[in-house]
């Protein structure tokens, strides 16, 4: 019966389904993040100029069983384009769920498989060119304490091979509703990362793997 449940759910979903929006809300300084990509020189405040990331295999689950998956296998989310930060999953009427799960990043099997279109098209600027691999999570901006040129910080977390695979499984407890808000807590990120010392991550290595671990904790 346990195995039948998801199949039955999928069957009924075509008959009567309800759309549930997953809504990703980046937060910085306790407030909704505002992307500032004007390129103005760093002032006294920390500024985020770009925040873009991939999610794969977004699903809602009930007691561990998948009850709904996203139509699209991979999503590119861009904080500068609010419409990309929110997308629907269709859930069969009357079916409960208690968990949202996804892979942060492009799953490594896909990453190893060649060129793709849509959200995965390399024209989106989320593919490395000096070596193969998607940038799974990109965060760029300026901060006064950052010693780099023009006080810029650049975190490009990616890579899918060997010990530095940066894809991460994320699982969150949720309660049913029309919208499921997911906070992305950038304050926690900047609490953990000392921008005076760590401000440029652009290749898969142990530092980027540590940051990938930290990224998982931002989703709440």
């Amino acid at each position: 019966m346990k195995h039948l449940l998801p199949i039955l759910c999928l069957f009924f979903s075509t008959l009567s389904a309800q759309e549930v929006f997953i809504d990703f809300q980046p937060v910085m300084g306790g407030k909704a993040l505002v992307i500032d990509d004007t390129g103005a020189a760093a002032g006294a405040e920390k500024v985020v100029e770009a925040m873009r990331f991939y999610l794969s295999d977004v699903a809602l689950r009930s007691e561990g069983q998948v009850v709904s998956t996203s139509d699209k296998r991979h999503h590119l989310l861009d904080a500068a384009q609010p419409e990309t930060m929110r997308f629907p999953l269709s859930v069969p009427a009357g079916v409960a769920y208690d968990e949202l799960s996804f892979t942060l990043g492009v799953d490594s099997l896909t990453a190893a498989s060649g060129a793709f279109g849509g959200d995965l098209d390399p024209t989106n600027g989320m593919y490395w060119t000096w070596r193969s691999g998607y940038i799974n999570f990109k965060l760029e901006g300026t901060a006064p304490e950052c010693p780099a040129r023009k006080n810029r910080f650049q975190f490009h977390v990616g890579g899918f091979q060997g010990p530095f695979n940066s894809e991460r499984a994320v699982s969150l407890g949720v309660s049913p509703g029309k919208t499921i808000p997911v906070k992305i807590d950038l304050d926690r990120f900047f609490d953990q990362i000392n921008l005076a010392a760590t401000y440029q991550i652009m290749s898969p290595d142990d530092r980027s793997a540590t940051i990938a671990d930290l990224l998982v904790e931002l989703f709440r």
Partner: protein
Amino acid sequence: MPNKQGVRRGSVRKWAERLRAQFCSPPLGPEALRPFLLLAVLGSLAMTAERLSDFAYPDYFPAPTYNFDANPLSGEKIQLGRRLFYDEILSADGTVSCASCHSPYNAFAHTDHDLSHGIGDQIGTRNAPALFNLAWSTSFHRDGAHHHLDLQALAPISHPAEMGSNIKDVVARLRGDSLYAAGFARAWGDPVITGERVLKSLAQFQLTLVSAGAKYDRVREQKDTFSDQEQKGYALFKTYCNSCHTEPLFTNQGFAKNGLEVDTTLNDFGRIVITTLPADNLLFKIPSLRNLSFTHPYMHDGRFRKLRQVLEHYADRLNDPLPLASNDQADLIAFLLTLDDRAFVFDRRYAFPVEMRSVPER
């Protein structure tokens, strides 16, 4: 035994099975449709055979590693890829094409330069490798920075000292060129130009670059025989070289240290740059030894101009010098020259597409 076209029979069979699976069991197909279905299958089989002849290889080659299911070859896509390969529109200032560094007459390497030569006369840090038998490669670049042929092209397109552009701008330039709209429509069914389509078309053309027509191959097919000297060289080759430069592709697709000292003007440490593993220090991709007469200079930094210098290196290197007297070296070179594939180098299907000559100046 290869059939007439040299296409591996097994592959044709696999394609046929796939087509049959696709066409012969439609859900609830009425009996009346049977003859049409049969026709459709036969028709596609004929087309498939033709398509496969763009990618034919001898039966003593291993199975290719490229996943053709994800990017099935078609004549129009190959032609589009060939055009893109020869078109300077890919570079930021319209001066450099893929063929600028990968010339057909050098087996798609570049003999004029030890290090690559890109836009604005900039010199890169590595010697452009020859391009052939890429469907068997499991990694690309001297350090294996790229794992998939489709995505490799992003590297030269974006490299500031090679083409100095990026795939987004390339797509924008191609969209502004009406001839390409027609080419993409023929190849992909509609004129939409995307990064994915550009990359897959380029890959298709490069996949068709199969070199399997050297004297060595004729000997394998029992259509020719080695001279005594070549035979002696072949024996030495099997003793000293074959573990890395494994026949019939003449590479085992791995990485190795072959005893070259670091050139301190370049400080290129090879594979370690990608993996960060100390054991990978100074390991470089093992290149194929086919077509050496056309691909000089040799090694990742093009430090040797002559095969003789390469053999002297293997015989004189500090670590593990190979016991190759000068007559052994001469025999080995005689064998290596049987790997020259003139039919490949002068194959018109791979050359600059003549129809591009009539294209008006942009």
